Every structure is written in C-alpha cells, then in structure tokens.
C-alpha cells in the first residue's frame, strides 16, 4: 500500500491537473497489476461497500487508543472525518509490515464474515502494523468511503496514456461490471476488443450549463430544443435478445425496471437508446419523488408498479442494427430513432420520443424555458443539430438551460459543523419559515456562501448559540438567508409538510430582519400553484 499511499499524498498536495495525471501514470507503470486493478477500481469511484459496521470500528479505535467515548466523539466533531480521527488517535505502531493494496483489499474482504470481537481484533492488529501515515487511507478503505482528488476523467486520461489507447476506448472498457478479483488487467485494458461485451453501455454525453446568452450560440435553426426532464438518465440496450438498463451513474438497473423487460423481444437486436426514465401515468409526468421511493427497493410490489409506472422519454440512438452510430449527426440519429419507435411491435411499449419544441427565435426558446415547470421539466436542452454523440461533459454542442429556481427567505435556526474542508466550521444550516408566531424548519442547506461569509456566519453562530444538542447548535433566530430550490412537493416526513429539491443558499439577506422572512403559507402557495 506504500505506493498507493504515496500516490494519494502526491495528488492530495497538488491542484495541478497535469501533476495529478503524471502521478497517476507513474503509479500505473510502477504498480503490480493486481494493485493497479484495485487502484483503478477505487479511483473511478466504484463502491466496495463498508467492510465493518461503523460502530465496531469506533469501538476498536477507542479501545486501542484508550479514549472514553465522549472524548472520541469530541475529537470526531472537530476533525469531521471518522477515518482521519481514528488515524490521529491511534497509538504509534508496534512493528511496521508491508502489505500491498491487493493484500489489503483481500484482508478487508474477509472482514464481513467475522463476528464482532474477531473483526475488531483483526482491525486493531492491522492498525498496529501499519505505518502511521498509511492509516488514514486504510481507514478510508475500511469505511468504503475512499475518494482521491481525481475525477474519473483524469484516471481515464492517465490510463489512455499509459496503455496507448484512446480516452473513449478506456472509458468504454471501464464501464459496467468488472471486479479486480476476476478481471485480468489484460482483458480490462490491453487485449483487442474482438467481440463487444453485449451488456456494455456507451459513455454518456452530458450537457454543460449554459453560461451565456443563447444568442451567442448562433442561428436558432441550427439547434434542437427539448425539455430538460427530471428523472433518471439511462441507456436501454438490447443485444442478442437481452435487455440491459444502465443509469448515468453506471449502475446496472435492469432488475429495477420490469416494465421495460418485454422490450428484449420488441426492439431490434443491436439497439441502444439514451433517454430519461420517469414515472408517468395517464398522459402526465409524475413527481420525481415517486421514482425515488422505488429505486432503492430490492423487491417491487404490485402496488409500487401501479402507483409509479415508468416510461423512457427517448432522446437519442447510439447503436442501430448493431452499428455504433455515435459519429452520425444528431438529426440523422434522431430520424433513425423515430423509425425504430414507429415499429408496430412497439405500440403500447413504455417508450416515447422526446418532444422537439418548435422555436423559430431565441425568444421562443426563452419562453419555452419559462414554461418548463408546468411540464414537470427543469428547463430546456439546446443541442446542435450536427452534433455527434460525444462522451463526458463537454462544452460546445449540448447545453442545458435551467429555469430560474424558486426562492424563499428563511431564518437560520440550527447549525452543525461540516466535513472535510469545512470540518469544525458551522456550515450545515437548518432554515425555518414562520407559521403564526412559530418558526418551522423547512430546509437544510450546505452550499452557496463564500468562504468569507462562512467564516463570518461561523463566528456569529458560536457567539449566538442558545443550546447545544450533540454537534447541533440552536441559535438566536436573527439571520435571514434567501434559499433557492428546484422543486417542491408535499411530504409527511417533514414537520413543515413540504419537501424541497436541491435547496441552496443564494445570498445572505442582511437587509431583512427575521420577522420579514417568508411564511409556511408562502411555501404552501408555491405548492398549490404548481
């Protein structure tokens, strides 16, 4: 693990993309292939899951460091990261042994089968053998929360350079299900791709947020305008009479969406469609929260299938008759898509084409954007008609133009320290609106303030604490913040009776006193007006 730890340190100590890629390449060239496989797996954000219950991990750490629980918790709240807290509290190691990354992962894979005491003993023993500076990364691996300061794209770039392949090919090869234990590095990265693995999705092409006036994009006639839908972006793949459904997060979700399974027989072999999976009933798109309730379930009851039936609104066709058509223009791909969706076998299938919004000027586009909310959309998509289907998030050909979010003024009621960069600064805030003379919490928000404002608010919170409940502080209800959010829906899980989508802070309303903040009635109004 020494080499992997050194890579982590190098990456942690630089903000330069070039230096990061160089460090990755050096690592891939040096590491044993078993270790490199694990490194790739971890770096591109594949989850290993948690290897031990967090409570057991804390227990073992407290016992080994001879710290009482209150002191350990106090430390944890200051650090804001369990893996780091443990690394800092443990006594100095006894004997330092060298374990490779793959040996470490094998050790961790053995942990879940151990009973509590044995698991704690095994971990404690390992801690005392590890050099102190490797403990942090080891702890991160145990908790299954391992992250290094590199994006998947950078790893792909480094691998492409190491193995002399194109970045797209590497992206494609790293997609889907593979595991370091049963995938030799040769087949993952090196061997020629003789026969396509039939379940493999294509890397998604993602739009960039529009950061200029649309006029700057040229002629409106060169662009297709669609609604930006709020569902699960996915690919439906039918090859060899089998269907595979992938989410944009590269999760294979086939089992979760039984309503699409008949497509295995209905769609021609060698078809890959890109679209948005949404709950849809009686000609209407249903709230996103409905899909959330079913996505996490392992088993789907009949009731769920009837309350939240799914469709895919199809945007694009990536593969047609087994041929990769991503290099064709959007217009050509779309006309092939339309042809497929018109097949008689597909009548009644849960596939619909994404509507092209007729726009003859940029002001039409603007209007379409403003009307998006009434169609349960988040805004509009602007796609250049001649664009090929690229991979990753790129500027130029595809833009998303979101609607102006809802805003509301809330009063800061509770605060809690953040994590990582914001550890021991109060940055996780709970906001409230007025219900008669009472403040009702309605949203939590973490982001939106500048570093300077965060420092100021942090100081204010420390000086205006009324009460402490563990890490949470209640403060005098004085500060007003404007919050923005994308959506609002009724919820019986929240005291306020509503749930917000993506709440974040827009600005600190220095000009407003607490009593001028919005009311619960204002929120309910937004809900009714939808």
């Amino acid at each position, binding site marked *: 693990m020494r080499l992997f730890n050194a890579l982590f340190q190098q990456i942690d*100590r630089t903000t330069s993309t070039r230096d990061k890629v160089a460090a990755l390449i050096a690592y891939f060239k040096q590491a044993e292939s078993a270790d490199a496989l694990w490194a790739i797996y971890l770096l591109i954000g594949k989850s290993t899951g948690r290897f031990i219950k967090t409570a057991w991990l804390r227990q073992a750490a407290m016992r080994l460091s001879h710290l009482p629980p209150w002191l350990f918790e106090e*430390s944890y709240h200051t650090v*804001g990261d369990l893996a780091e807290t443990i690394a*800092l*509290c443990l006594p100095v190691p006894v004997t330092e042994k060298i374990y490779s990354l793959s040996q470490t992962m094998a050790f961790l894979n053995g942990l879940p089968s151990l009973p509590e005491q044995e698991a704690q003993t095994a971990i404690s023993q390992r801690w005392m053998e590890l050099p102190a500076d490797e403990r942090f990364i080891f702890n991160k691996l145990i908790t299954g929360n391992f992250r290094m300061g590199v994006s998947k794209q950078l790893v792909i770039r480094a691998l492409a350079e190491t193995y002399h392949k194109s970045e797209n090919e590497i992206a494609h090869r790293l997609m889907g299900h593979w595991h370091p234990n049963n995938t030799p590095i040769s087949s993952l990265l090196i061997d020629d791709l003789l026969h396509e693995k039939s379940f493999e999705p294509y890397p998604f092409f993602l739009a960039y947020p529009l950061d200029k006036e649309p006029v700057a994009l040229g002629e409106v006639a060169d662009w297709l305008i669609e609604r930006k839908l709020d569902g699960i972006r996915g690919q439906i793949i039918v090859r060899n009479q089998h269907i595979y459904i992938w989410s944009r997060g590269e999760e294979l979700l086939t089992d979760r969406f039984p309503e699409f399974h008949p497509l295995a027989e209905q769609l021609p072999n060698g078809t890959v469609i890109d679209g948005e999976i949404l709950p849809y009933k009686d000609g209407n798109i249903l709230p996103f929260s409905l899909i959330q309730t079913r996505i996490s379930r392992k088993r789907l009851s009949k009731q769920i299938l009837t309350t939240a039936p799914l469709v895919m609104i199809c945007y694009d066709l990536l593969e047609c008759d087994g041929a990769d058509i991503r290099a064709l223009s959007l217009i050509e791909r779309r006309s092939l898509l339309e042809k497929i969706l018109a097949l008689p076998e597909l009548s009644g299938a849960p596939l619909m084409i994404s509507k092209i919004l007729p726009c003859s000027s940029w002001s039409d586009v603007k209007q379409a954007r403003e009307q998006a909310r009434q169609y349960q959309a988040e805004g509009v998509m602007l796609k250049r008609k001649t664009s090929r289907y690229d991979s990753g998030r790129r500027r130029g050909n595809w833009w998303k133009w979101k609607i102006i979010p809802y805003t509301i003024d809330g009063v800061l009621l509770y605060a809690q320290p953040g994590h*990582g*960069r914001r*550890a*021991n600064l109060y940055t996780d805030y709970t906001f409230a609106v007025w219900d008669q003379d009472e403040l009702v919490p309605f949203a939590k928000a973490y982001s939106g303030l500048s570093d300077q404002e965060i420092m100021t608010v942090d*100081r204010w919170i420390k000086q205006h604490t009324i009460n402490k409940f563990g890490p949470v502080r209640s403060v005098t209800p004085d500060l007003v913040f404007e919050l923005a959010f994308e959506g609002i829906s009724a919820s019986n899980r929240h005291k306020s009776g509503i749930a917000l989508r993506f709440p974040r802070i827009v600005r600190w309303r220095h000009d407003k006193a607490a009593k001028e903040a919005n009311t619960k009635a204002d929120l309910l109004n937004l809900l009714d007006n939808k």
Partner: protein
Amino acid sequence: MLITFNNKGIYCAQADLYIDPWQPVSKAIITHAHSDHAKPGNKHYLCHQDSVSLLKLRLGDQISVQALHYGQTIHIHGVTISLHPAGHIPGSAQVKLTYKGEIWVISGDYKLSSDGIAAPFEPVSCHHFVTESTFGLPIYRFPQVDTVTADMLAWIEANRKQQKNTLLVGYALGKAQRLIEIAAHAELPIFAHGAIANVQRTLIESGYPLHRVMPTATLDTKALSSPYVVILPPSALGSTWAKRFTPYEVAYCSGWMQLRGARRRKNVNRGFVLSDHADWDQLQTAVQATSAENIYVTHGYKATFAKWLVEHHGLQATEVTTQYENHLLLEEEKDEVI
C-alpha cells in the same frame, strides 16, 4: 484565593496587578509579546527582558516597562513574583506568584519541545496551575520536530529542482524565526515580509544569534533569480503581494496543519505541523510536572481538557473564560500588525 479571574484579566488582588489583562490596568505582567496577551494601554508593564524590545516594537517606545531575568524574584505587598521559561517564543515566561506558602503559576502559552531559539520550558512546582489548551484534544499529538524539519527541507529542495520559489507561512513572532532557521539549511536566499523582518532585526539586536533576512519591501522582485525562499505572515497568504513571487509553492506551518480540513481551508497544497503550543501529550506532561492539584484551563479546548484532567488524572480542574481566543483558526485570520 491569591488569583481570581475577572472581566479585565487574571488578577492578583494582594499585589494589585494583572497577568495578560485584556483591558487597560495599572500594573500588568505580560507572559509574552503576542497581541492577544500583550494589549496596549496599561500604565506599567513587567515582562522578561527579551520581551521588552518586542513589546516596544508592538506598543510603542513610550510604554513604561520593567524587565526581569528568568528566576529573578521581586516582592510586591508580600507576594513573591518570578518569571520562568515557557518555551513558546523568545521572551515567553510563566509567571510564578507566591504568598504565604501558596504558589500559583500562570503559564501563558507554552510548549515542551525545544525550538532552539526560545529558552526551553521549565516545569515549576506549584499548588495552582493555569494552563492553555489550544491543542487540548487527543487528535493533536504532533510529529517529531526533526521529522517535520527534514520534510520541509526535502520539499524546499524539490521546489528548487523545479526552479520554483518556496513560500513559508507562519506567525511573524516565534514561528517565522523557526522557519528562517530551518530554511537557512537549504542555502538559498531568504526574504521576509516587512512584519517578519522587523521582528527578526529586533531579536538580533537583543542578542539572539539568528540568521539575517532581507525585507521584501525594498526588493525589485523581477530582478531576483529563482529559486529563493520567502517567509510571510498568515495575513499575506493569497494576497496579490504574494503573487510577485511566482512561480512558487506555498506551505502553511502551524499546529493546525495536523488536520487535513484545516490545511484545505487555507487553500495551500502543503502544511507542515510545526507548533509553538503544547500538544495533547505535552499538556498533560506539563500539568503533571507541576504536581499542582488545582488546574485552571484557559483558551482552547478548555472544557474538554478540564474534563479529561478530572476524569483521567483525578485533578481539580476547571475551565476559565479568558479573551485569549486563539480558538480554531480565528486568531490566524487577523492581521498581524507589527
């Protein structure tokens, strides 16, 4: 009680004097010359002789100040007073007050590890010990100074190889002098921000055998040839002033760098854990070495450390609110006006 804590500072009624008062008083004993301990406006100051010129640099030449050596005693209204090395920064002292057999020690800020510049900490036996708790959590157990020094030099060398300048950030008084002594081993030219250059000159004039540094104010940075080293105070970090030294790598040097979050908040790529305060282990060693039974815990993680002293060491420990609010990183956010 010989010593009480009131809204002006730590007070000795019998001698009618304050230790490190935060509001103007008639007689003030100053433990060390940092701005949160040495406030302006007092009528008379008493401090260690090495703090005199630093106090004057900060508060002006006009102040009335009396100096003591370490171990020298004076008597005021029957109270015996002496100063003892605290190891924090040049001139830093613990204040010992004895009256009718009752001994109090007010330690100000201190560290146990020697930095080669400040006179090393000396434990003083007492009945009542007032301690800081800046790093009073078990997560703060600092690495060996030698290891940190070696890491710093290796890093400066790596920067040199890439023809990059090295910027080291630390308090103008105390930390900066340590940084200069360490950087001197790299055998590169060393420049310092004006605040630091002033302190350096003052200490050299007081007889400290320190390396001389060139103030940056008079420099034509464009004419300088890289690589070189610049020492700067926290307030200059990220300023346009610092950009003049491009290309550079910058490191923040402080005990706070023990936490990744703290380093990332500073937006620096490197942090070196180099502290002028006692860490968790040193705090306990210091408390035990005094064999005091009554411990008063001031600025830092005071509630936590006091609770630990009660539970684990069986001492009578209480937390005391002072205005030496070095808490978290706030202190370092302030401009250092020297």
